[in-house]
């Protein structure tokens, strides 16, 4: 069903996108001057955005095929191939990755003064690995990129992070690693069950036995749930976000945590549809808990960054809710929400970074009334706040609305409770904005606050543009993903086995 359409461009576009940052990183090894390092890193990340252009322009959104395909034999003894390809879902995240990486480099321009070269090398390696995760169509290759991402991210948090960075970095690493190694076992088991193949497209067409599906789904779930992060394995996220440097937070919130949800879409649903359906009620409950609990915790935070981190938990709950509604509204809404969250939360962390660089405090209580001093900044923060709340006309609205529509079709009670999350979201975000921007200036330090400079404005502009672009014309993104999403739903429906058989297997597994 899903086919790999080979790259017709005459040059291996996806490989270029993966290896250009690696090349940049190697080049940086020989550059000593910090200013030159920044410019070279920025240049390479802009080249990446440039490479997105042929990718987006030549993508045929009427096809559900994997496009820009490349396949080379790699480790023949284990039947592992270097296979790349993107469909309407992954292409969006590849594009988002290149954008957020460039923004991360721009916001680190003056914030990172210590070991600039190492910092930029880590960012560029991270970019390569992230694009690799979205473009891999071989499970071994995917896992390689998935784990390789941990190294630069761990270093970003651990070296350039806040005071409690060591704890946060190790916690991030260990949580993710434990989930990932369980997935590794499942990947190997899938390899044998599918006739010794790591080929994602071939495995999608393989029908696994029900018992196998349940265990393998659980193992993949372990890896993806930690990454999303779903309740109750979300606790690494607030720590990691608070301690990470701004660039790290933007990438973490914008891309890394989307990978969990992407994993559900790319692997869990097509590989193990029966298990996915059987597990759906549990995942729905966890999603709703994440939505409400995340929002509730966000209310209690005194730290700007931690508040946004908990709001991420809440927003990602919407994403998983939409994905596991398993209908086109839910899935498309979920994917759109992933993009939106990448844009809005990326922008929110950018906003924190901008102000933190000036005041060196993240405590909400240290602010208040700064709107009068820094009008541009206050406007930017307002737009992003409204987008995060989901005000109609901004991107957040379309995503959450479509998700709730999808969830309402099959899971009314969950949709009803989840919609409470939107109200709570409006509450904590507006309250946050009020405490930061409005009122009188209570902290004398803020009297000397300077507004966003042109570099920061340039970094923020694309995100603001995306907030309105997706909000007013979501079809641009929806059209790209539509064929792939309907294909996914068709695939799941075609593969799924009769409900009684599933129920029976589930019962024997539980021991009834």
């Amino acid at each position, binding site marked *: 069903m899903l086919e790999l359409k080979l790259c017709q461009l005459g040059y291996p576009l996806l490989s270029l996108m993966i290896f250009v940052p690696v090349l940049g990183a190697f080049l940086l090894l020989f550059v000593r001057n910090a200013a030159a390092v920044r410019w070279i890193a920025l240049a390479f990340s802009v080249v990446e955005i440039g490479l997105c252009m042929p990718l987006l322009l030549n993508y045929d959104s009427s096809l559900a095929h994997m496009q820009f395909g490349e396949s080379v034999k790699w480790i023949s003894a284990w039947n592992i191939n270097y296979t790349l390809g993107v469909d309407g879902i992954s292409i969006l995240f590849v594009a988002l990755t290149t954008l957020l990486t460039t923004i991360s480099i721009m916001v680190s321009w003056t914030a990172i003064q210590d070991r600039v070269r190492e910092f930029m090398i880590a960012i560029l390696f991270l970019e390569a690995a992230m694009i690799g995760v979205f473009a891999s169509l071989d499970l071994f290759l995917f896992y*390689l990129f998935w*784990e*390789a991402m941990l190294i630069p991210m761990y270093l970003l948090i651990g070296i350039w992070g806040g005071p409690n960075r060591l704890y946060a*970095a*190790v916690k991030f690493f260990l949580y993710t*690693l*434990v989930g990932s190694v*369980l997935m*590794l076992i499942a990947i190997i088991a899938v390899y*044998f069950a599918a006739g010794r193949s790591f080929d994602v497209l071939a495995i999608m067409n393989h029908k696994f036995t029900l018992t196998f599906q349940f265990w393998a789904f659980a193992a993949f779930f372990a890896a993806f749930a930690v990454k999303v992060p779903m309740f109750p394995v979300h606790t690494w996220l607030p720590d990691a976000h608070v301690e990470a440097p701004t660039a790290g937070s933007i990438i973490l919130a914008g891309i890394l945590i989307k990978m969990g949800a992407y994993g559900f879409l790319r692997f869990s649903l097509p590989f193990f549809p029966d298990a996915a359906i059987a597990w759906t009620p549990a995942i729905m409950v966890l999603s709703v808990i994440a939505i409400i609990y995340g929002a509730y915790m966000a209310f209690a935070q005194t730290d700007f960054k931690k508040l946004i981190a908990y709001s991420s938990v809440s927003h990602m709950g919407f994403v998983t809710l939409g994905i596991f509604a398993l209908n086109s509204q839910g899935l498309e809404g979920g994917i759109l929400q992933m993009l939106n969250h990448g844009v809005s939360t990326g922008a929110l962390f950018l906003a924190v970074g901008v102000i933190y660089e000036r005041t060196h405090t993240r405590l909400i209580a240290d602010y208040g009334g700064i709107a009068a001093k820094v009008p541009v900044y206050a406007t930017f923060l307002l737009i992003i706040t409204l987008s995060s709340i989901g005000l109609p006309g901004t991107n957040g609205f379309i995503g959450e609305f479509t998700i709730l529509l999808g969830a309402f079709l099959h899971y009314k009670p969950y949709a009803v409770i989840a919609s409470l999350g939107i109200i709570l979201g409006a509450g904590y975000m507006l309250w946050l904005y009020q405490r930061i921007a409005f009122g009188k200036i209570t902290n004398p330090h803020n009297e000397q606050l300077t507004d966003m400079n042109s570099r920061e404005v340039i970094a923020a502009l694309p995100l603001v543009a995306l907030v309105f672009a997706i909000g007013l014309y979501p079809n641009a993104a929806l059209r790209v993903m539509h064929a792939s999403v309907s294909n996914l739903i068709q695939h799941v429906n075609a593969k799924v086995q009769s409900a009684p058989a599933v129920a029976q297997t589930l019962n024997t597994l539980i021991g009834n």
Partner: protein
Amino acid sequence: MSSMYQQVMQAMVPIAPEIVLITVGLMVLILDFIVPKEKKNVLGWISLLGLAGAAVATYKMMGIDLMFFSGTFHLDPFSTFFKFVFYTACGLGILLSINYLNIEDIRRGEYYALMLFATTGMMLMASAGDLITLYLGLELMALSVYILAGFMRQDNRSNEAAIKYLVLGAFSSGIMVYGMSLLYGLAGTTNLTGILSFLRGADLANPIIFLAMIMLVVSFGFKVAAAPFHMWVPDVYEGAPTSVTAFMSAGPKVAGFAVLLRVFLYALEPLHAHITTIIAGLAVLTMAVGNILALSQTNIKRMLAYSSIAHAGYALVGLAAGGPEGAASVMLYVCIYAVMNMGAFGVVIMLRRAGERGEEIADFSGLGKTHKTAAFLMLIFMFSLTGIPPLAGFVGKFYIFKSAIEAGLLWLAIAGVVFSAISAYFYLRVIMVMYMNEPKGSIALTTSPSLALALAISATAVIFIGVYPTDLLNYIARSSIWIR
């Protein structure tokens, strides 16, 4: 007369590499009298030349699959593969030693000779087709390493290491010989092929067979440092000169696994189904002991000692899986392990300088700021030991767990990955100390061309095998076909 001479010479061809190493070793011993004290490094380079000569001889005999000396000596792709690993381990060991010995003021030629003798012993172990040859090789290796461990005569810890290693090693050798004699009593032969054909027709429920097998498991378990026979490892690794520790953690351990594979997957193959559980249990225990005790170490040599115990555990997982795949995964694993572990010890050696031991993990503080290259190399080795792609350690673990799952030992594979996730904590701690702590005072590192070369070789290998293991895997697949 001349034809007899030719015959003798021809008969010696299969053991040409061993003869080369022994000859060069003896030459080094003699030259030691002539070379002045401050020029002993020359002996190291001569030993390296000897290794290169032996490697060429082995290379010429690649692909041969024959038995010599009445079936006591296998010249087969399996032993050839291991010989290359031993050359690498010994070569890296010598490169690590050259400058280190000057700092420790060990200016003696015997050191290099003993390393060559130990390597010859390992080669005999890998080639052994007979329990006697096996024992001969093992003792040659073990005796040489006992002396090497105690080479710093003025240092109490070094003496302690040597004594501990000798006493426990002798004890385990005794158990091994007892097990071998029981096998001989039953089978009437010490030849591995003979034992195999005896076992094929024997009543496997015989408790004597079981007893002999257990004794072999225990004694080999001692040699590869499997729990609960690991007690000697931390003290010996900590006390021995660091260059010897590096060599010891790679060479003898790899040789131990060569023998384990040959004995348990070939000679005792009919028993494999009976001992899978025992070996799997040992593997879990070894991984648990190694990884959990490593968590609380503050001395880097002790931490690496426990880590080497843990890695023996992973390799045992492959042995429990058995069959050609299991054997191949163990071969891949031990060869990757040898390279990355010696690399890590190489960085530890860099911290050793006159008047400063540099063995505490805290001594690595701020290395990422003051010595970027050294810290980056250590980072690579630590992540590789953790098993994070795209580094070689990941490929090794992947193959081990893959063969375990293929053999139906899913639970063992799960235990393996869980323990390797735990291990991330103590490997990360080294990285954390290097990159995230402030430097304590000024650190001056000792570097030398030979040390740099050793580190460059191991780091390149770790990255290259991690990204492109294809050729190595194909070579190992060709070298492990002897297991039927």
